């Protein structure tokens, strides 16, 4: 870190982003621990994924920009990957939760000739009954 006003401002910006990112990381994990139902718990870690990791990654970018003088783009890669995969993960988790928490007859009709895809038997499965409730944990 170089001296002078610019170095001080850069250091302050990095420290501020680190504190903000850490705050949102702990908010996300605390929500994951404390919220009562799974659909609410799905909501909390999105803060950790976007704001928390995002803040820490921007702090890292600024830190290496000020120390080495070069722009590092690795962090953007991680940010892009996390932003792309977080909705997919949340969707898959919500779908798995609905699949496990509700019986097949409780689900609303799809309004199409085919039913809910997760209850369809596998295409390669010769026995149509074996694929209905593969992981019934209750």
């Amino acid at each position, binding site marked *: *870190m170089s001296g002078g006003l610019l170095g001080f401002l850069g*250091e*302050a910006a*990095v*420290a*501020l982003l*680190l*504190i903000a*990112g*850490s*705050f949102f*990381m*702990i908010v*996300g*994990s*605390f929500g*994951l*621990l404390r919220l009562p139902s*799974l659909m609410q*718990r*799905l909501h909390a*870690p999105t803060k*950790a*994924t976007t704001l*928390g*990791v995002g803040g*820490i*990654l921007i*702090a*890292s970018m600024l*830190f*290496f920009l000020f*120390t080495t003088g070069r722009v*590092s783009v*690795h*962090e953007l*890669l*991680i940010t892009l*990957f*996390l932003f792309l*995969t977080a909705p*997919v*993960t949340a969707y*898959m*988790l919500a*779908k*798995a*939760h609905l*699949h*496990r*928490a509700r019986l097949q007859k409780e689900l609303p009709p799809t309004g199409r000739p085919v039913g809910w895809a*997760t209850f369809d038997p*596998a*295409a*390669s499965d010769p026995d149509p009954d074996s*694929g209905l409730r*593969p*992981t019934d*944990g209750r």
Partner: protein
Amino acid sequence: MIAFALAVGFAAVGLGTIFCLVRLWLGPDAVDRALALDTLVVNAVALIMLLGIAQATQIHFEAALLIAMLGFVGTVAFCKFMLRGDVIE
């Protein structure tokens, strides 16, 4: 100033990791545990980034990227298994 912020960050992310581990322990459903593992991966990525800043080195980025990718693939595979009883049909 950065050293203080890094100490706060390590403490916060470590505490978040402990919260995720408690949720992983409590459950109560397998979906909760998959979600806790996913959040644990996000915490691990943040922890590795903080370590990179603390050591002023850029060699940890590949590790963070790999952990993020493996976490995503692992969570999707868990969900796929819970949905269909099979990962690749």
